[in-house]
Structure formats: structure tokens, C-alpha cells
């Protein structure tokens, strides 16, 4: 794929999300469903790689770009990841205290809730791909509970899950 196309697709995903994994439905739609350049398993692997290391949630986008087109794709995705952040500069200048405007807050609330619904829809096939037996189902449920109701850092969860998976193969 042309790196410029990758950049534009990722920029679209970044611009329409307000959280790290909020771009996931758009990514899956563009790269898995419409263009068939990635599989659900590869998207899952990108999220794993992005979350295992330190840094912001959205880093999985760089891994997606790398999977699609190697280093040029990774660079395109990196630029798409950081481009929206610079929108903050004119917004700092012009928006100022309007960030508390009820209509702007309402728009963001609607966007967040819409993103949640889309993320749920994208998570169904990814979960089907991830759950291959009772152990993986138990890990998924435990992961949901630990991240939703405790302050556990997600990187530790990845490490713990990997250790359980390794132990299951050993014993």
C-alpha cells in the first residue's frame, strides 16, 4: 500500500477518536474488512505489541502501519498518530475557556459513546479470534474484571497472561 494512503487512513482513524483504542473500529473497517491487507489476528498482535511496552495507548497504530508496509508504513502511521496532537496548538489559542461549553461537551460525550458502541462491535470478531478454549476465555474474563475494577497496569496483565499461557504449555 502507498504510505500516503496509509497515513490518510490512519489520520482519519485518529481524528475520529478520543482515546487510544477508540480508533480500532475504523482501523478494522479500513484494513481488515475493506482492503483485506490485515487479518483480525494481526490487529490483535498489533494491540499486544503496542500495550506490552511503555507509552501511550495509540502506539498500536505504528505497529499496524509496520505490518501493512514495513518501515515506510510504520513512519506513516507514526506521523498520523502525532498529527492530531498539534491541533491542540490553535485550539489553545482560540478555544480557551470554551472547552467547558455545554454543546462542545455534549458533542464529545456523543462521540465517546458512539466510539464505545463501535469498539464493542469491533471487539466481537477480535474476541472470537482470541478465544480458542476454556483457558483463553477465563483469561479474557479475568482481564476484563481486573482492568475494569482495579488499578492494575495493563502491561502487568500482559506479562501475567503470557506467564499463564507459558505455564499451561509446560504442564
Amino acid at each position, binding site marked *: 500500500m502507498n504510505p500516503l494512503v496509509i497515513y490518510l487512513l490512519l489520520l482519519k482513524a485518529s481524528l475520529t477518536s478520543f482515546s487510544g483504542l477508540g480508533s*480500532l473500529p*475504523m482501523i478494522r473497517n479500513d484494513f481488515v474488512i475493506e482492503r483485506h491487507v490485515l487479518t483480525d489476528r494481526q490487529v490483535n498482535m498489533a494491540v*499486544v505489541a503496542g500495550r506490552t511496552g511503555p507509552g*501511550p495507548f495509540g*502506539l498500536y497504530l505504528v505497529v499496524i502501519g509496520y505490518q501493512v508496509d514495513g518501515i515506510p508504513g510504520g513512519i506513516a502511521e507514526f506521523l498520523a498518530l502525532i498529527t492530531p496532537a498539534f491541533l491542540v496548538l490553535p485550539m489553545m489559542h482560540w478555544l480557551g475557556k470554551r472547552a467547558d461549553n455545554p454543546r462542545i461537551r455534549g458533542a464529545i460525550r*456523543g462521540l465517546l459513546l458512539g466510539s464505545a458502541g463501535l469498539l*464493542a462491535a*469491533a471487539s466481537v470478531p477480535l474476541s472470537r479470534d482470541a478465544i480458542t478454549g476454556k483457558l483463553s476465555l477465563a*483469561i479474557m474474563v479475568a482481564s476484563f474484571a481486573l482492568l475494569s475494577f482495579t488499578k492494575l497496569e495493563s502491561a502487568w496483565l*500482559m506479562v501475567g497472561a503470557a506467564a499463564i499461557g507459558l505455564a499451561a504449555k509446560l504442564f
Partner: protein
Amino acid sequence: MAVLGRELADRLGWITPEDYALAFAIARVTPGTNIIAFCAAVGWQVLRFTGALAAVLALTAPTAVLSVFILKLLESGSEHPFLMGAIAATVAAVSGMMWSIVWMLVGPHFKGINKSSRAVIIAGGSFVASWMFNITPVPILGIATLIGVLWQDPPPPKKDDAGA
């Protein structure tokens, strides 16, 4: 963001608490990853565009390279049965993480009938539109945003001065 605020405003004094609050608020309404926008905003407050660029690159560039190395590491061992077991378990954990993020986004909106109804209609409607009708994300998010603008919280009840 809280850690950065304590470091930059309280300890180093590079920005004021008001600067921090403004950067935090604007970063929340900036599309993309909020923490990156927050770092750009704080960098801009300290050293204008140079500061913003330095802050964003410092946050993202090393960790982006590390993520690709982690992917290569995972792929290189994907034929090994032990590593396959570890990867499969990690992928399952990521799946749970995705559902926890859905809950994190929706959960705080379940307060009272009005807010809960709005959350169910917007999030549930987006899910159904995408999952059952295969509508692409952009129009779904556009409609969700419009509903969010139009469906405001009711004003708080006025206090009766007479106490009646």
C-alpha cells in the same frame, strides 16, 4: 497527565496550575490520543512550537520503535509452541482489555434515567448500526455527535428561596 502536572507545575514551576488546567481541558477535546495532545500543549506553553515538537517526539518516538521490536520478537517466536501459548494467552488478555475500555467509556454515563437512556441509545445504536447493518464508522460517529449536542442534561432544579 497527573504525574506530569505535579512535576511541571508543582516541582519545577515551568507552568502555572492554570496553564496545566487549560492544557488538560483542551487535550480532552482534541481528537486522537489525549496524552500526546496534552504533552504538545504543555510543551507549547513552555517553549512554543519547539517545546511542543520535543514533548511529542520524546513521548512517542522511542516507545513506537520499541513496539515494533516487540512485534518482531513475537513474530520470530510464533512457531515455538511455548511462545505460541504465551502469545495466545496475551491476545485473550487484550480481548478482555478491549471490553474493559468499552465499559470505561460507557460506565460513567449510567447515572439516572436521562443519562442512562442517552448512553444506551447512542452506544447501543452505534453497536447495532455497525454490527448488524455494517454501516461505516464515520456516519455513525457523526450521528452520535449530533445526538450528544442535542440531548443535553436537564438543568438542575431551582432552589425555592421561600423554602416552600
